[in-house]
C-alpha cells in the first residue's frame, strides 16, 4: 500500500490505509518573531476594540456621568434607559416612536431589494457565463464600467425615471434602485462563479432537452449555495447600511433606519445625548452583525469556493 498522492486525496479517493498519514509538525516555540507578531496583532485588535468599548460603555451610562468626561471609565450605574429611549421614544421629526419604526421600514426594504437584485444578476450572470449571448463581451465590459459610476452623478436622472415608473417615494422604488445599482458587481461575481461550471454538464443538460429556465432552476440554482451566501451577506450589509438611496427614494413613507439614526444624532443647535446616540448606533449595527455571526463560516467557504478569487 503506497501513500496517496495529493491529487488523489483531493479527488476524494478512498483507499484503505493502515495508519493515519503522519505529518511531522514542528514544535511551537516562542521566538522573537512570534512575540512581535502577537504584539502587532494585539495592537491592531485594540485599534478597533477600544472605540467599540467606548461606544458600548457609553450607551449604558447616564448623561450625568458622561458630562464628567472620563470616557474610558465603566458605568458607575448600569442602565438600559438609553437603549429603551433609542428604540421606543427617539424622535425622527415630529414622530417620537423610536428607531423601531425605521427598523421595520429597513426590513421591508431589505427583502424586496434582496430578491430583486439577486434574481436579476443571477440570471444575467448565468446567461453570460454559460450561453452564447450575442455581444456578451462588450456587455460585460459595459457592466464593468458601470460598476465605477458614482451614484451621485446619476441620482437626479434616476429620480425622474422612478417617478415616471410611479415607484418614487415607495419601498419598491428603493428596492428597484438598489437592485439596479448593485447589478454590475453582483453579475460579475455570479458570472465568474458559473464560468467554473464544466461545459460538459451544460451539454448533457441540453441533450436531455433542458430549456434555458429548466437548466437554471434544476441544475444551476442547486449548485449556487456557496455563492448565494456570499452575495446575501454582501447585499444585506450594503442595503441595511445604506443612507443615501433610502433618503432620496424613500420619500415620506419609506425612510430606513439609517435616516432615523441620522435624525437622532445630527443636531446642530440642540443638546447631544451621547448615551442615546451610542445605543441607537449599536441597535442599527446589530442586524448585519447577527448575519455575520450566523453565516460567517459559510461566507468563508463561499469565497474560497471560487467566487471572488476568480
Amino acid at each position: 500500500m503506497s501513500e496517496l498522492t495529493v491529487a488523489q486525496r483531493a479527488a476524494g479517493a478512498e483507499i484503505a490505509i493502515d495508519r493515519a498519514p503522519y505529518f511531522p509538525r514542528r514544535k511551537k516555540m516562542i521566538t522573537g518573531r512570534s512575540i512581535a507578531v502577537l504584539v502587532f496583532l494585539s495592537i491592531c485588535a485594540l485599534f478597533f476594540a477600544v472605540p467599540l468599548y467606548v461606544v458600548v460603555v457609553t450607551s449604558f451610562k447616564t448623561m450625568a456621568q458622561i458630562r464628567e468626561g472620563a470616557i474610558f471609565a465603566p458605568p458607575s450605574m448600569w442602565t438600559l434607559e438609553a437603549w429603551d429611549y433609542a428604540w421606543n421614544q427617539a424622535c425622527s421629526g415630529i414622530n417620537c416612536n423610536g428607531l423601531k419604526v425605521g427598523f421595520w421600514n429597513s426590513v421591508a426594504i431589505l427583502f424586496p431589494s434582496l430578491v430583486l437584485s439577486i434574481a436579476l444578476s443571477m440570471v444575467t450572470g448565468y446567461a453570460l457565463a454559460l450561453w452564447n449571448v450575442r455581444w456578451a463581451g462588450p456587455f460585460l465590459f459595459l457592466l464593468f464600467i458601470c460598476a465605477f459610476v458614482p451614484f451621485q452623478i446619476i441620482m437626479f436622472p434616476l429620480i425622474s425615471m422612478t417617478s415616471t415608473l410611479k415607484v418614487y417615494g415607495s419601498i419598491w422604488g428603493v428596492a428597484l434602485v438598489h437592485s439596479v445599482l448593485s447589478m454590475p458587481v453582483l453579475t460579475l461575481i455570479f458570472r465568474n462563479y458559473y464560468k467554473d461550471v464544466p461545459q460538459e454538464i451544460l451539454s448533457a443538460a441540453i441533450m436531455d432537452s433542458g430549456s434555458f429556465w429548466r437548466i437554471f432552476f434544476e441544475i444551476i440554482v442547486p449548485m449556487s449555495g456557496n455563492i448565494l451566501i456570499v452575495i446575501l451577506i454582501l447585499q444585506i450589509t450594503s442595503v441595511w447600511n445604506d443612507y443615501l438611496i433610502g433618503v432620496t427614494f424613500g420619500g415620506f413613507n419609506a425612510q430606513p433606519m439609517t435616516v432615523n439614526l441620522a435624525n437622532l444624532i445630527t443636531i446642530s443647535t440642540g443638546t447631544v445625548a451621547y448615551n442615546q446616540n451610542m445605543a441607537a448606533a449599536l441597535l442599527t449595527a446589530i442586524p448585519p452583525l447577527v448575519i455575520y455571526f450566523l453565516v460567517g463560516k459559510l461566507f468563508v467557504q463561499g469565497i474560497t469556493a471560487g467566487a471572488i478569487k476568480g
Partner: protein
Amino acid sequence: MSRKLLTGLAAGLMLGTASTGAMATDLVIYHSWSAPPEVAALNVLRAGLEEKGHSWTDIAIPHDTGSNVNLMSLVTGGQPPNVFMESNPGVYRDLAGMGLGLPLTQWFEENNVVENLPTSVAAAISVDGEIVKVPTALHIDGMVYYNMEVAEAAGVDPTAWTSFEDMFADFETIRAAGYDPVAVGSQPFQVGYLMHALTAAVAGPDVYSAIYGSEVDPAALDDPAFRQTLETLRLFANEAGPAAQNRPWNETTNEVISGRALMQVHGDWMKGEWLAADKVPGTDFGCMQIPGGKAVVVTVDAWGLLGGVPEDVQQAELDFASVVVDPEVQGAFAAEKGSTPVRLDAPADSLDACSQEVLEILGDPAHQVQNPHNTADADWQDSIWDVVFNFWSDPNMTVDDAIAQMKENYDTILG
C-alpha cells in the same frame, strides 16, 4: 390690531371648516429638526394647524446632510412638500424658476406682520425684494453667556463691562481666582461664527455688510475697525489651550456650566445646554450682548411655502403661515425651542431673561445684521473661515498676513 385680524381670520376659517367640513387639507411638512426641544416646538405649530382643521404629515431629513439637495430631489420626483424649512435663497430662486414659488409680500402686508418684525428678520425672509419665507425662530450668533456663580466667586460683574477693554482687563482677576475667563473651542465652525459676530460687534454694521453682505467691498478689509476685529479675535485665540482643540461648542458650553470657566461667546443656542442641565436664565446664568457691541448677527429659521398648488391647498399653507407668525404661538414656540420669538410684540410673560434681552436689542433697527449664510457668496464665506481659522491656530500669523490672504481670495473668487 394684527392679532385681532388674525384671530378673526382664524375664527372665520374655523367656521368655514365646521360648516362645509371639506376644507381639511393634509400638509406635508419638511424640516430638519428632531432634537426634543425642537420637536416640542413643532408640536406647538401642529396643534395650531390642527385647530384650523388641517393635518400634518411629517418628513424629517437631518441637518447638514445635504438636506436642501434632498428637498430638490423630492421636487424632481414629483412629490414636493407643501411646507419646507429652508433658508438658502438659491432654493427659492430655483423653485420660482419652476413655477413652484409662492410670493408672500402681499399676504404679510395684509396681515400686518412686517411692521412687527425686527428689520434683520424682514430682510432675512426676502429673496430679491419679495418675501418668500415665513420666519419661525430667531437666534443671535454671538451672545455672552456667563456662569453667575463663577462671576460672584471671582468678584467680577460682566454686566458692568462696557467695552472689550473692560472685559479683558478683568481676565487677570478671574485667573487669579482659579477660573478660565472664557471657554473657546478651536473648530472652524466656532471660530468662523465668532469672527462674524465680532465683526458686527467691533467694526459695526457697515463694515460687516461690506464683507459679509451680498455685495463685497474689498476696501472694507483695510478698514482700521476690521483690523481691530482681527486683533480682538487674536485675544480670544490666546485663551485656547490644548483642551480646546477641536472641542465641539456644546462641550465648550459645559466648561462654563460646570464652573471651570466664566463665560462663552457663541450662538445663543447655548441656552439649550444650560436648560438641559436644569439651570435657570437670569438666576444661574446671565446672557448679554458682546460688551460695547455695535450690532448683533441674527440667524432666522424660516419656512417656505409651495406655490403652483390648488386653491384650497394654498389656503391651508397660508393657514400654516398664520399659525407660525401668531404672536402667542411665537411665544410658546420660542419657549419650547429655546429660541427668541421673531416678533417684537410677542407676549412678554412667555419670554425668559435671555429672550427679553435679545428682543430689547432688536428693537433698534440699526443694531442688527443678517447671518452671512443668507447673504454672502458661499465660496467667499468659506475662504474667510479658512483664513481666520489659520490665523486662530498660528500665533505667528499677523493681522497683515490675514488681510493679505483675504484680499488674494477676494481676487480669486469675486474679483
